């Protein structure tokens, strides 16, 4: 009788602990596209003053700061993500600064991770287009890493 109740206890214990139902934060999520801003002449990292980054047709501003590199999210189920990068933006004045529109063309894959984390998206960058306007502050782009599978290095260099 004692053995039987012990077995039942063991059974309940085995049922209750399911460690793989928790997505650990140590597992990397969908990688962002890492942009690095470089000086056109020296080829060194150079900060962009008061840079505003906003997705096209997205009402929310993704970021607004002075930085030399940043990760931006790409769409999970479309081959194109468009951002506007505004240099010298002043949040008190609308339409201030120099706005450049940048198009990221890519292929995407959904990769299975685990029961608890589900899937992540990885990307394969095809090309990057800067829409021409009267005064582009972005002078050139260069794809360093076409396969976006992690956030360890800069994927795309932006020269200004």
């Amino acid at each position: 009788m004692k053995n039987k109740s012990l077995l039942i206890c063991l059974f309940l214990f085995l049922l209750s602990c399911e460690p793989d139902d928790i997505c650990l934060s140590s597992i990397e999520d969908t990688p962002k596209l890492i942009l690095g801003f470089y000086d056109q002449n020296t080829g060194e990292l150079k900060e962009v003053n008061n840079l505003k980054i906003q997705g096209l047709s997205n009402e929310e501003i993704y970021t607004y700061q002075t930085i030399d590199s940043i990760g931006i999210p790409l769409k999970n189920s479309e081959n194109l993500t468009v951002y506007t990068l505004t240099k010298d933006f002043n949040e008190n004045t609308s339409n201030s600064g120099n706005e450049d529109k940048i198009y990221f063309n890519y292929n995407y894959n959904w990769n299975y991770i685990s029961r608890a984390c589900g899937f992540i998206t990885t990307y394969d960058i095809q090309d990057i287009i800067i829409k021409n306007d009267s005064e582009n502050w972005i002078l050139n782009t260069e794809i360093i890493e076409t396969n976006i599978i992690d956030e360890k290095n800069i994927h795309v260099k932006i020269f200004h």
Partner: protein
Amino acid sequence: MKKIYMLKYFISFLTLTLCLSNFSQEKTKDSLYKSTYGLKLGIDLSKQIRMLTEPDYKGLVLIGDYRFSEKIYIAFEIGSEEKLVENEVLNFNTKGSFFKTGINYNIFKNIQDLENEIYIGFRFGSAQFDHQINSFTIYNTDQYWSQNNIKNPISHDNLIASWLEFIVGFNAQVVKNLYMGLNLKVNRLLSQKTPNNFNNLYIPGFNKVLENNNVGVGFSYTIQYQIPFFRKVKN
């Protein structure tokens, strides 16, 4: 509708088994006790209980054993299961059939002419199954594009798995030749064909599969009718 149909099936099955048990043999008042050798056939009722409590589960499992010697029974099990697995990030269906075969060893010493069993045993199981992913969530801490829920059916067909089960249980003879029992099992995966870009998270017959180890658990609540073949004097 299906549930009512299944219940009807059980009621008729139970009535049938009860009727059959009326044809029991007369007791021989020997000084020596005899025990029955035969073939037991029945059903794993835990699946039907699960169908009533879990709305997204369907299963039918037929079980049986043949008494090979005084203590050894050759056991087999055949079944089919369908299960919708849903958690915060995944929603998929698993559907398939399985077969198990193995041995039960009766460790219970029956007194007089009682014929109950407490057994330990093992099973070798194998299953063939399909997964259909209905929807999933992209693991992305950034919600800027709010595009993380993907509804895109993906099929993974013709998958196979095999495993070994260790089983502990009992069978009690409630009326002549009608047995009811309960068993617990610990399963260990031996091999599996995993789908490309997914995993076997549920295997029919095996139950839930954990990703960080290959051990699973299960239990059965069984009801079986024994077709008696002959009676043999106990040693």
